[in-house]
């Protein structure tokens, strides 16, 4: 029998085929990135507790003024511009590994956050954003009565 990606005898999981195709597509486009640099910049880490979420990202060389952070519903947007590298006629470059230019990244949060209770700090090149779930959206514990 001809082997195809969409094998009909595949335990009946339609979505497995879709996932496989998606990962095949991702691999296909992987090569278009420049080596050593990921397509999504800056990389972010997330921490979560019951009612809040913390995002951290490393942006060395920027200042608080260079970073623009906006949050709407579950979308967080991070925008920034790195300062121009030093230039001049007398400068000879030997190595240029550090990032420069402009970036824009949109991240989807696992839940809606209260835009009035966002605490963003920038320290030693690391941005930490602390976001709270709005009061009305918090899961409520319901007491179960016995009959």
């Amino acid at each position, binding site marked *: 029998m001809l082997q195809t990606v969409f094998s009909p005898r595949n335990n009946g999981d339609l979505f497995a085929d879709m996932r496989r195709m998606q990962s095949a597509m991702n691999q296909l486009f992987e090569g278009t990135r420049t080596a050593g640099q990921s397509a999504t910049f800056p990389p972010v880490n997330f921490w979560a*507790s019951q009612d809040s979420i913390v995002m951290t990202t490393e*942006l060395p060389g920027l200042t608080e003024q260079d970073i623009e952070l906006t949050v709407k519903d579950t979308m967080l947007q991070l925008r920034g511009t790195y300062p121009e590298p030093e230039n001049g006629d*007398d400068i*000879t470059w*030997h*190595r240029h590994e550090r990032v420069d230019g402009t970036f824009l990244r949109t991240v989807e949060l696992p839940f809606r956050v209260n835009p009035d209770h966002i605490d963003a700090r920038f320290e030693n090149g690391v941005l*930490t954003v602390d976001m709270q779930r709005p009061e009305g959206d918090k899961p409520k514990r319901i007491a179960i009565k016995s009959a």
Partner: protein
Amino acid sequence: MAQELTTQAARDMAAANGDANRRAMAFTPAVDIFENDKATVILADMPGVAADDVDVTLERQVLTLRGKVTPDAPQGYRQLSAEYQVGDYIRVFTLSDDIDQAKIKAAFKNGVLRLELPRSPKAQPRKISVKSA
């Protein structure tokens, strides 16, 4: 001019040496190196390191840049996703003779170390005579 001393097989990571109980990995910080008419400047990205935890040592011709990261995981939270790893930084360069080692300046701001290595005024081109065998 500064010449890199160690070449890592893995581009971004070096195994942490020393301290076995520090589980954090050691990273090679990205650097910019350029030269102007007075000095060689090295910029190294070390996000997450406090200014006091940056350690620059110069022994003979070997310049070592180290940064110790304070773990930034918030208390009482569980990690949801990680796109980057956190760890200490280390990178080693050899410097050429013509650097005035007494006048090296170091500054640390926003996670970036800036080292200025002024050229020594005394640095004279040396002539080496080659003897025939």
